[in-house]
């Protein structure tokens, strides 16, 4: 799930179990004001695995939540989630552009670079991220964008816990092969 904090910083939260994500989804919905204006922001169709339309979401999904960044990270961690600051190379909605730097007490597991710049040079070109594990992904908000950037991990199994270990570089797991 990608959550927009009240500071308008985007943060990725990854969970291994659907139940964990649903708890956070309820928390987000409880702090997400506004109604969608389909003519302005587009239709928010809910579809099943066969692309059959089941309905439409009336929530203002493009909007920011009323949740602080610290609150989101703390909540996700308490449920066992991995938190990654989204597209930190972007001026708007990236933590560096929006907040200038990553606060010392914010316990994120890593940072994400958008598809626009290569991962290899990101740490040198973006101030303040060199101490964080760095990944790249597609930030896909429509199907065609899926896979336009990707990161390899060396893991013992495809689980969120293994990804956490890889981000820390522990037990032989690592980011990048």
């Amino acid at each position, binding site marked *: 799930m990608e959550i927009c904090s009240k*500071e308008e910083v985007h943060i990725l939260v990854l969970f291994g179990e659907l139940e964990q994500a649903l708890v956070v989804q309820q928390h987000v919905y409880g702090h997400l004001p506004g109604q969608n204006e389909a003519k302005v922001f587009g239709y928010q169709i809910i579809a099943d695995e066969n692309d059959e339309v089941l309905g439409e979401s009336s929530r203002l999904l493009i909007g920011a939540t009323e949740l602080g*960044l*610290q609150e989101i990270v703390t909540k996700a961690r308490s449920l066992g989630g991995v938190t990654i600051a989204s597209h930190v190379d972007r*001026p708007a909605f990236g933590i560096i*552009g*929006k*907040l*200038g*730097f990553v*606060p010392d007490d914010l316990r994120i597991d890593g940072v994400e670079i958008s598809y626009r710049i290569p991962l290899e040079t990101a740490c040198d070109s973006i101030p303040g991220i060199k101490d964080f594990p760095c990944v790249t992904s597609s930030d896909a908000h429509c199907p065609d964008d899926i896979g336009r950037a990707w990161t390899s991990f060396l893991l013992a199994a495809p689980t969120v816990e293994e990804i956490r270990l890889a981000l820390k570089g522990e037990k032989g797991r690592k980011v990048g092969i």
Partner: protein
Amino acid sequence: MTVKELSDRFDVQVVAGEKGLNRPIDGGYCGDLLSDVMANAPQGCIWLTVQGHQNVVAIAVLKEMAAIVLTGGHEPDPETVEKAGVEGIPILAWEGSAYHLTGLIHAAGVRNSDG
């Protein structure tokens, strides 16, 4: 003009960092993208923003700002209030728009080197 004088003159509420109220205001800046403020705000300015995150205090310290004004009824986070107190950076609160208060401050003669 000092921060205290500005607060009294335009009825801008002080919410934190009272010990810095005698700081002189040497200019002004408006912005909510903190990377831009860090790069471009003049030293010693008063800064109008809607951003209540604790990082605003660090940036104010870096730029030796006179004060931060949270406009539009936005409130500082509890950590922001605490850090402002420690650093002696006044945080003021203004219910109206940044546009309005900026006009008042500018008309009172507070200018940057470029106007």
